């Protein structure tokens, strides 16, 4: 809109400049007398009409130009019915207005966004350490129906900077209800990863047990169909995918971690073993504030005759309450992982165990957004309970974790988080209690 205004102002200036020339005439005439001749009057009238026509043409060009400019007025085109070709500017045109559209700020369809964080952790039985992470997210709207999303994850790991391709996928909106998506995408059945894993969205400095870096994949390499469907006053969203299958760690050597025996390695990017994973997620919103979801994953496994069946339930409730004078959020997810009974190789010794695990988290946050104090409005309290049951596996213990935190929001996308973690492991395993801090921002 700013550019339209600028162009209109420019046109008005041009008109004013055009009208600015007649004073010379007036001056010339004024030397002869106080009145202009009929010829001079008619000449001025013609010039005035000509300028009016030119102004009208500029206005028409602006209106047509804005309607055709990429991404500047998609509302003029119904969602799901846009003709991508109609959105393309005429590159062969010599019209300055058309060409200048390429350099209008805000008309680009590429967006660089993402998030970054700096943190500090001091937990018992481990060295206190600072950490930093940077996740640039590249969004490219190829057309009204086509979106490419790429995300890198840069983080410090031991003495190196680790670079990971977090996401790289292309989404095509087939119609109002179906989107085809292919590439490396976030796991649709992992609600924490899909919705909350970004540092400025996650309410605590660390991530939940079991659902993150545990029982569920964070990403898949494959293809999925997904979308949202209105059902009267309710809504349903769904995703169904096929992807590379994970690998099962069936044996460990003397230099390997015994605890990893029987776990699933989800980063099987070359799809060793040739199995395919399939599954999906369905989320139902009976009221706008509440979403209840269920997801499944079924696959064969590389290096094993066993199958993996993972399924989970998730819940998300958000309430902006006058009575509570603030915003209340509840989120929870529980995952079951069933890999069956198998014989594993523990450095040459056969080991048989029932490879079933489960775990999840429940989190409650409250931010007093409706109180008078501007300081209190910035604060947010958080409590999270985590549980990971895998005592009958080589890990050998179950774990509960209680984390309390206080956040201070500096902007809607910048937060300073402080938390204390109480860890409770069974069977005499070492607990990792301690403090965690994180300064995170989204951009």
């Amino acid at each position: 809109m700013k550019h339209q205004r600028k162009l209109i102002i420019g046109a008005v200036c041009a008109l004013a400049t055009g009208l600015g020339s007649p004073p010379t005439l007036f001056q010339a005439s004024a030397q002869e007398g106080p009145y202009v001749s009929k010829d001079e009057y008619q000449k001025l009238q013609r010039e005035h009409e000509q300028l009016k026509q030119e102004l009208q043409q500029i206005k028409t060009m602006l209106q047509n130009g804005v309607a055709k400019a990429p991404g500047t007025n998609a509302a003029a085109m119904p969602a799901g019915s846009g003709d991508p070709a109609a959105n393309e500017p005429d590159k062969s045109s010599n019209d300055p207005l058309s060409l200048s559209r390429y350099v209008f700020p805000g008309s680009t369809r590429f967006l660089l966004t993402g998030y970054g964080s700096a943190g500090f952790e001091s937990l018992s039985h481990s060295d206190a350490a600072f950490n930093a992470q940077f996740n640039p997210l590249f969004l490219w709207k190829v057309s009204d129906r086509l979106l490419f999303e790429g995300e890198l994850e840069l983080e410090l790991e031991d003495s190196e900077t680790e670079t990971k391709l977090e996401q790289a996928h292309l989404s095509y909106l087939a119609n109002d209800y179906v989107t085809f998506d292919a590439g490396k995408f976030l796991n649709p059945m992992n609600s924490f990863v899909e919705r909350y894993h970004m540092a400025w969205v996650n309410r605590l400095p660390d991530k939940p047990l079991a659902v993150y870096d545990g029982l569920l994949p964070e990403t898949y390499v494959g293809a999925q169909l997904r979308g949202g469907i209105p059902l009267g006053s309710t809504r349903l969203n769904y995703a169904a995918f096929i992807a590379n299958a994970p690998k099962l760690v069936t044996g460990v050597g003397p230099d390997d971690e015994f605890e990893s025996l029987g776990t699933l390695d989800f980063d099987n990017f070359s799809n060793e073993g040739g199995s395919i994973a399939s599954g999906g997620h369905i989320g139902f919103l009976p009221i706008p504030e509440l979403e209840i979801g269920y997801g499944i994953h079924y696959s064969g496994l590389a290096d094993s005759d066993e199958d993996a069946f993972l399924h989970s339930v998730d819940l998300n409730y958000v309430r902006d309450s006058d009575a509570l004078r603030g915003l209340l959020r509840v989120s929870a997810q529980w995952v079951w992982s069933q890999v069956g009974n198998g014989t594993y190789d523990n450095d040459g010794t056969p080991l048989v165990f029932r490879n079933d695990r489960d775990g999840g988290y429940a989190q409650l946050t409250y931010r007093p957004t409706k109180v008078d104090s501007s300081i209190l409005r910035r604060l947010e309290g958080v409590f999270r309970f985590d549980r990971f049951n895998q005592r009958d596996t080589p890990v050998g213990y179950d774990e509960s974790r209680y984390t309390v935190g206080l956040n201070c929001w500096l902007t809607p996308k910048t937060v300073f988080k402080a938390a204390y973690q109480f860890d409770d492991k069974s069977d005499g395993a070492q607990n990792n209690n301690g403090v965690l801090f994180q300064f995170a921002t989204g951009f």
Partner: protein
Amino acid sequence: MKKIHLVSLLLLTLTGLLVLAGCASSDPARRTASNEANGAKLWAQNCARCHNSRSPTELSNAQWDVVLLHMRVRAGLTAADTHAIREFLQTAN
């Protein structure tokens, strides 16, 4: 485990049917009629479900277009809701 195969197959079949059903259903005029009234409300509800809402003036209309397409895919927004939110943002921006 055969039951699990059937569940996956059923899910994929259901999605296939949705593709076919969706191809024949699109009523932009009806969507637009309800969009203007609901845009602000949908904006508040859908954004706050996961994160704090940002100011509509933080990005240009073109940038919001990219973000909305992204969130339609990520958060499972319906086409009608996405369209209504876009109209609200363009009005508020």
